[in-house]
């Protein structure tokens, strides 16, 4: 009987039948489920149906607050509920739920005219990854400054466990800052209309201690940090920065990244990536 995989649910038993009916809004209430007074159990069973989808939709809206705000209440509710039905979590640890939501938005008809929403969702997913990442002390500038140039060139900068790097087709880091301000109730009308949507962007997301920061960075800084992430030597990473952006400012990039806590330590010996 367990071989039955049709959508009828008729052959399922016990919790399999219950779980199937929860996710199929029009399926009959499973056999043996009743109201104590003998009344039709459908409405009471629907409480469970609603709890499952609504609680997961709530969890997604909490995980993607700015994406949800930009979608607007109705669409946000509808899309998160649809995602929850189609892609239920595999773990009770909901802090990791929704990794597929950015891709879902990227492919959905309802958000086709606003492709930046999928990128915003990706930024918010990375924000949560950073929020929950392992703790580690951040590398300080003095440690780096004390190195002789040869050691520095040959060694590599290791990213902090909470550091995430991402490139976008849209100005997502700026948009994130603007929409965060909007959530705080600030007037962002001018900032919104000044935003050039045709401009790509790069972001550094990290967490020196406990507060996650989202930072727009230059193409050179992004290439430099991506090379560090890949395990390149400091010299090679710097080269990658200059190749990506002739005006790459290594000194400023380093000092900004250090003050944001983007690195955990310096590893003197370069290891192949």
């Amino acid at each position, binding site marked *: 009987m367990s071989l039955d995989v049709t959508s009828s649910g008729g052959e399922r038993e*016990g919790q399999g039948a219950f779980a199937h009916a929860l996710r199929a809004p029009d399926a009959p*209430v499973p056999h043996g489920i009743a109201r104590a007074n003998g009344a039709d159990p459908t409405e009471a*069973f629907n409480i*469970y149906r609603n709890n*499952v989808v609504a609680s997961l939709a709530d969890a997604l809206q909490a995980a993607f607050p700015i994406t949800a705000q930009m979608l607007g209440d109705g669409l946000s509710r509808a899309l998160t509920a649809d995602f929850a039905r189609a892609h*239920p*979590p595999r*773990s009770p640890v909901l*802090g990791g739920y929704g990794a597929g939501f950015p891709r879902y938005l990227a492919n959905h008809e309802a958000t086709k005219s606003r492709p930046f929403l999928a990128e915003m969702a990706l930024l918010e997913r990375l924000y949560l990854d950073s929020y929950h990442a392992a703790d580690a002390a951040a590398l300080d500038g003095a440690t780096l400054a004390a190195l002789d140039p040869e050691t520095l060139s040959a060694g590599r900068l290791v990213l902090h466990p909470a550091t995430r790097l991402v490139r976008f087709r849209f100005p997502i880091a700026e948009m994130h800052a603007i929409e965060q301000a909007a959530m705080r109730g600030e007037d962002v009308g001018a900032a919104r209309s000044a935003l050039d949507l045709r401009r790509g962007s790069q972001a550094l997301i990290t967490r020196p201690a*406990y507060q996650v920061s989202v930072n727009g960075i230059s193409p050179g800084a992004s290439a430099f940090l991506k090379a560090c992430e890949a395990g390149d030597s400091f010299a090679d990473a710097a080269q990658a920065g200059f190749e990506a952006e002739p005006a790459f400012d290594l000194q400023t990039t380093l000092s900004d990244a250090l003050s944001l806590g983007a690195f955990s330590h310096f590893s003197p010996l370069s290891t192949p990536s």
Partner: protein
Amino acid sequence: MSAYHTTASVPMITDADAGVGFKHAHAEAVFGDDHAVRWFEVHPENYMGAGGMPHRLLTDLRERFGLSLHGVGLSIGGEGRLDADHLARLVALNERYAPDLFSEHLAWSSHDESYLNDLLPLPYTPQTVAKVADHIDEVQSALGRTILLENPSTYVVFEQSEMSETDFLREIVRRTGCGLLLDVNNVFVSATNHGTSAQAYLDAFPTASVGEIHLAGHASVTLSDGAPLLIDAHDRAVADPVWDLYENLIARIGPRPTLVEWDNDVPAFDVLAGEVARAQAVLDTQSPLLGRRHVA
């Protein structure tokens, strides 16, 4: 529970203490304000990341207050095997934070590869008793401690059930040695939904095994046939009939650690502290030696 504390400086939950669910939005008030709340409960599932703010807050909480871990994701009432990865995560948190109390639910929440994020009901039969008891044995043996099992809120019944919920719980206690978390709101919600007496349920409950009590608010809807259906929403203050049941219960069985749950539409911390104070006042009537601690 004192066996888990080797130093007197670690806060402990006693029978005479009322607490509340911890919300990150309340951290400033919880750690900064002068308040009378003595212990907090968290869902361990929210503290299973590698690091960051959640663990920082839980560390601070453990240092200053009594702590209870109240699992919502283990699916103890599930037909299948327990999720070994999830159990391992619970074991790690139990070791790291040494909570005074550790509880889970008489419910299931996972099936096959999916987590359903709700506390779903099960029929009460000899087969389900055996399955739940096996799961609790496995959990207690992994944790190295007894746990408290919570009675559920239910919206439907199973035709195949052969025993009452209170008899089911009594049998689970007998087989596993676990304690019980008596959720008085759940008792009221289920009794209303099934047209039974909440007081009769409490009279039949194996109260000697109660190690913690929950209080919470519920929502109410009216079904199309006119029957009321209560929903365990945790989104408002505890209802008066639930307070009445609680007061009678404490007068009968004596004080037990009592927790107010408020998880949706969460108000400012002082509103929660007010609910805790009301529970504390009830506990204090039965704790003469501690009555002076009555909160303002």
